[in-house]
């Protein structure tokens, strides 16, 4: 007899099943998006997530967003510790935050309203836009804190704004000019992003605006308006702290195409832009977009391999995603959970970075039960609305698309070639020597810091401390005494991009490898050996006599102590959950891997 399904309340407290808890809570709130629901579930949320301090600067009162923010941020996988400012204080607060070097705020949000843009910034549209830009540039030039800007939605006319036609025209021009200035600023300025609140509220019609609320408590948002704003904040700011999933594994029959190829035949499956094939085409186009933003695609399908391959060959013109666009493929009659584990091994990526899409409720349930860390999305009949549901799951929310993201899928393609070369090489050393591996070590700068932040926050396997610093943390440390390096790797097959971040802290007598993070795509190349040798070189250049480091154990970084031992480190102590290591007998010299060149 099967055990009864756990209630949502039980799921929320089950740390192993948070992925499912989030899906179920999302469904519950979609059907009952009331204030009471948000208050109820806000009280049941688990606490283990690190709170992220977000300064909310608004020329109106926003404190009532709190319960919505709590729940929406949980749904996006992070916890918000909002700091509210008095509505009249947003301008001085922006200056104060910019000037405060010891500020521990993780992000600043500035959300504007139309009344402020019309009345508070200048007499003409040009003056209003210029005043706003001046403030933003002053902030950006003196602070590294990520800044999120929300243009002002235009309120439905409620009598509180100027009434004459001429004045209405002027008001509209003021809001448009200031909003445009703000959007243009986010395009150009670093670490500055847009919260597209005016577009979001259109889903509510006029239902986001509450004139009576402004009179009562200086807010102008209804609870529906607060809810969608909280959702936007959670989803837009969240990727600063929560990496997106990296792999989408799709079923084929009745998911990637309509029908069952084993029964309907190659010509019988539904594909193409028109008719019943159209929703499948739309899903494939969505997969294409995901791939272009750095998501790897894979197939897990119960089918005869030859049948499935034949569809990709003979119906290629009807498909938007070709066979070569998949980074891993399992088409057989094996258990899908087992196949997902194999794909995870093959790609070197943890299962918590996986999203699994399948039309079969049985397969979905099997994966949910066996692999609770995987985000499971069941395709509905005819896959109508499937892309929208995958997007709404927030699994692939990203802050911006880096060059590294765009090149990722292609790199995994190159990895397949490397794998083939490895299989034909005599032994591992012959294989590594045949690759012509070259390392480039660059100091952290504006060009590479986005990738450095991404690596430190996404990497689980080779990560010395599992510390997840914000971009601000990184820069503050680099501007201080620490040396932070971004390391690139290339070989005869291509460029791996930036694959490691090394942080060195020179101390009295030793150089401390404060952190070393290596992407899974570069594991097995002995990059760690080379970077410890590099740390030794820096120690000697600075007249320091030893090299030390520390390790914090996590669920998946067990290979780190093994590597430290191989390189020559031995344990020197334990403190505050860290195991300390030092190079044996105060050495600073370790051997440089002979098949790795330094550029």
């Amino acid at each position, binding site marked *: 007899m099967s055990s009864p399904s756990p209630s949502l309340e039980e799921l929320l407290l089950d740390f192993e099943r948070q992925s499912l808890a989030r899906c179920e809570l999302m469904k519950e709130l979609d059907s009952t998006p*009331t204030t009471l629901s948000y*208050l109820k579930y806000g*009280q049941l949320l688990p606490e283990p997530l690190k709170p992220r301090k977000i300064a909310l600067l608004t020329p109106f009162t926003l404190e*009532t967003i709190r*319960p919505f923010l709590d729940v929406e941020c949980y749904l996006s996988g992070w916890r918000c510790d909002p700091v509210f400012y008095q509505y009249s204080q947003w301008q001085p607060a922006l200056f104060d935050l910019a000037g405060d070097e010891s500020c521990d705020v993780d992000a600043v949000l500035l959300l504007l309203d139309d009344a402020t843009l019309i009345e508070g910034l200048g007499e003409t549209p040009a003056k209003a836009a210029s005043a706003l830009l001046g403030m933003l540039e002053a902030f950006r030039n003196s602070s590294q804190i990520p800044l999120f800007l929300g243009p002002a939605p235009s309120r439905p006319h409620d009598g509180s704004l100027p009434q004459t036609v001429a004045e209405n025209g002027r008001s509209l021009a003021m809001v448009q000019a200031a909003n445009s200035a703000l959007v243009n600023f986010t395009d150009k300025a670093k670490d500055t992003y847009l919260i597209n609140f005016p577009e979001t509220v259109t889903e509510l019609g006029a239902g986001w605006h509450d004139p*009576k609320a402004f009179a009562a*408590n200086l807010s102008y948002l*209804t609870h529906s308006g607060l809810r969608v704003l909280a959702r936007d904040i959670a989803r837009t700011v969240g990727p600063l702290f929560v990496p997106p999933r990296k792999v989408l594994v799709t079923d084929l029959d009745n998911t990637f195409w309509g029908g069952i190829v084993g029964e309907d035949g190659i010509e019988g499956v539904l594909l193409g832009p028109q008719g019943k094939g159209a929703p499948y085409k739309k899903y494939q186009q969505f997969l294409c977009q995901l791939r272009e933003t750095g998501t790897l695609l894979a197939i897990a399908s119960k089918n005869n391999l030859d049948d499935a391959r034949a569809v990709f060959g003979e119906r290629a013109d009807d498909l938007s995603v070709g066979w070569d666009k998949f980074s891993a493929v399992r088409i057989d009659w094996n258990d899908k959970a087992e196949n997902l584990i194999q794909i995870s091994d093959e790609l070197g990526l943890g299962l918590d970075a996986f999203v699994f899409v399948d039309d079969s409720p049985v397969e979905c349930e099997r994966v949910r039960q066996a692999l609770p860390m995987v985000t499971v999305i069941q395709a509905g009949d005819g896959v109508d609305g499937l892309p929208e549901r995958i997007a709404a799951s927030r699994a692939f929310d990203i802050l911006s698309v880096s060059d590294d993201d765009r090149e990722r899928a292609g790199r995994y393609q190159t990895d397949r070639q490397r794998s083939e070369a490895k299989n034909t090489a005599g032994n591992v050393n012959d294989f590594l020597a045949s690759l012509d591996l070259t390392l480039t070590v660059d100091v952290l700068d504006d060009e590479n810091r986005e990738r450095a932040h991404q690596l430190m926050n996404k990497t689980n396997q080779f990560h010395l401390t599992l510390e997840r610093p914000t971009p601000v943390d990184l820069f503050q440390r680099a501007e201080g005494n620490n040396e932070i390096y971004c390391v690139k790797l290339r070989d005869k097959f291509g460029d791996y991009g930036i694959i490691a971040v090394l942080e060195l802290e020179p101390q009295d007598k030793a150089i401390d490898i404060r952190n070393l993070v290596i992407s899974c795509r570069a594991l097995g190349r002995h990059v760690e050996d080379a970077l410890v040798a590099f740390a030794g070189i820096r120690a000697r250049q600075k007249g320091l006599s030893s090299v030390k480091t520390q390790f914090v154990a996590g669920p998946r970084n067990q290979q780190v102590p093994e590597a430290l031992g191989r390189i020559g480190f031995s344990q020197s102590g334990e403190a505050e959950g860290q195991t300390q290591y030092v190079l044996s007998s105060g050495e600073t010299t370790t051997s440089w891997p002979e098949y790795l060149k330094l550029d």
Partner: protein
Amino acid sequence: MTRDEVAEQLRTIFAAVLQLSPEAVGPELSPDTCEAWDSLHHIHLMSAIDETFGITLDIEQQIEILTFNLGVEVVYEELQGADAVGV
């Protein structure tokens, strides 16, 4: 909806918003007797009342709700008014 039915539903709302047990929501519960009933929670209470009963209380009515019992009166009267105009 009878006055008692309104009171029962309101009790559930007050308990949920103010994080009290339903038994702790007495007729004279007010911002003076309940620390959690601050201005922010008053706004959440009003919103939850609007959503649950399908009404829109105006500012005067919202300000009038100074105790649980006054809440019952205001909501009951509003519902009677809505019934009278066939809403």
